[in-house]
């Protein structure tokens, strides 16, 4: 594997149990990086054995500090941090409870801050931070108020880190669109006719399909690699063209 584009690099990917995070873990490992990932539960059974696992709640400062120490100890340093861990709550502002706020903002916003605060001083020169934002941080998905807002936070933090911590570090965000994961399924599940909703959604994608975790992972590999050393402070939408089009397409009615 030493010929991979990330050969010799070390990476921490938060939220690597499933979905986009797992896709990034697999892609990084394939490209030769030494990877640690984490999640709230126990190590998932299918994770490749060379990938390190840490059971960590990203919303807790002491847990993240311990994770940061473990990363440096086990990997010997850190080149790439991917802040992917996130949760989604399908509610409007009026329906959202304090507990919802603590849960969602604790992971999606505070968790990203905690990981960056703990690891920026420990990362190697030339390191790359990759935050997973969302197209929903730019334009609103109905009924996902705090999620949308938390991703806008991620986009703003991305720019601040790029500005404050260059030239030693680069920081960018990837803004996925509709990726086939549990989160997308949950969104379709609230439709009156989930299958019709799915085909309507497909028709709004210029590339004619939903995304896959590896579509995001490919962008993450590039942002982690030395091919992107002049790229910093940007938020890249990877959404199959969805948000390039108007929300209103009379041809679909």
């Amino acid at each position, binding site marked *: 594997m030493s010929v991979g584009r990330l050969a010799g690099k070390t990476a921490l990917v938060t939220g690597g149990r499933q979905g986009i995070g797992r896709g990034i873990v697999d892609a990084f490992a394939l490209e030769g990086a030494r990877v640690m990932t984490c999640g709230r539960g126990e190590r998932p059974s299918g994770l490749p054995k060379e990938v390190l696992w840490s059971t960590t709640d990203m919303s807790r400062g002491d847990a993240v500090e311990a994770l940061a120490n473990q990363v440096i100890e086990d990997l010997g340093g850190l080149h790439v941090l991917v802040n992917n861990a996130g949760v989604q709550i399908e509610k409007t502002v009026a329906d959202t409870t304090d507990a919802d706020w603590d849960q969602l903002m604790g992971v999606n916003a505070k968790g990203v801050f905690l990981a960056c605060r703990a690891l920026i001083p420990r990362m190697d020169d030339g390191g790359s931070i990759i935050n997973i934002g969302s197209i*929903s941080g730019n334009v609103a998905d109905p009924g996902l108020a705090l999620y949308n807002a938390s991703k806008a936070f991620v986009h703003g933090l991305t720019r601040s880190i790029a500005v404050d911590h260059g030239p030693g570090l680069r920081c960018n965000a990837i803004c996925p669109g509709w990726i086939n994961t549990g989160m997308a399924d949950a969104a379709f599940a609230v439709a009156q006719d989930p299958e019709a909703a799915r085909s309507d959604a497909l028709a709004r994608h210029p590339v004619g399909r939903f995304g896959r975790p590896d579509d995001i992972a490919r962008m993450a590999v590039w942002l982690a690699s030395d091919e992107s050393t002049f790229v910093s402070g940007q938020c890249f939408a990877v959404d199959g063209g969805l948000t390039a089009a*108007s*929300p209103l397409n009379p041809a679909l009615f």
Partner: protein
Amino acid sequence: MSGTLANRTALVTGGAGGIGSAICRRFAREGATVMAADIAGLDKVGDAGIRPLQLDITSEESVTAAFAALSEEWGRLDILVNAAGIEIEKTIEETTLAEWNRIFAINVTGMFLVSKHALPLLRQSKAASVINFGSYDGFIADPGLAAYCATKGAVHALTRAMACDHGPEGIRVNAICPGYVDTPMLQSFFGESGDIESLRQAVRDVHPMRTYGQPEDIANLVNWLASDEARYASGQLWVLDGGLSAQVQQMRL
């Protein structure tokens, strides 16, 4: 005469069109001396003290002749609204070079010519405001409107450039970027639909405000940008679309 635009002189290109004529009526009501410039349809103009001006904005001769006359008569220009524009409902593959050149000649070159030759008169104003017509299509695409989208992107860039270059001379330059507004252009976009009322309803339903705009809604913002209340507003692209583009594509769920 009292009103927010008392004693101001205003030239509105596309002044016989759906949005342009609403702007002229509003300006007149606010006390401005208004000239409605258009290439045709001027027989409908002339009420409420609005003066018609036959003008081909794609012809530099026609434009310089118009400003020579305005210079004689008014000696200054306080408000220039570049509202003239056309739409071509085609993809790039269907668009002929002649059609491409024509829409750029009107939507972009015409704005350039009118603005360029208005500058000497705008400099004579103590409160010069130029309002260009962009479109939300300059940010995100409506299907089958390729050349139109491209002209509006050009308008947005031109707006910022003009604001930059002529701000030091006391000339403010902004663009309004309408979404769906009830005009002959929109009716044409609805086109050959068999059941236009159900299409209209569907289009309304996609908007967070559950309606599309009226020309008077656009005139409200034009009036503000033209007035002294907007004296610190320049170089901006003002999207006015009933919330349409705040959303991710509105799937039928």
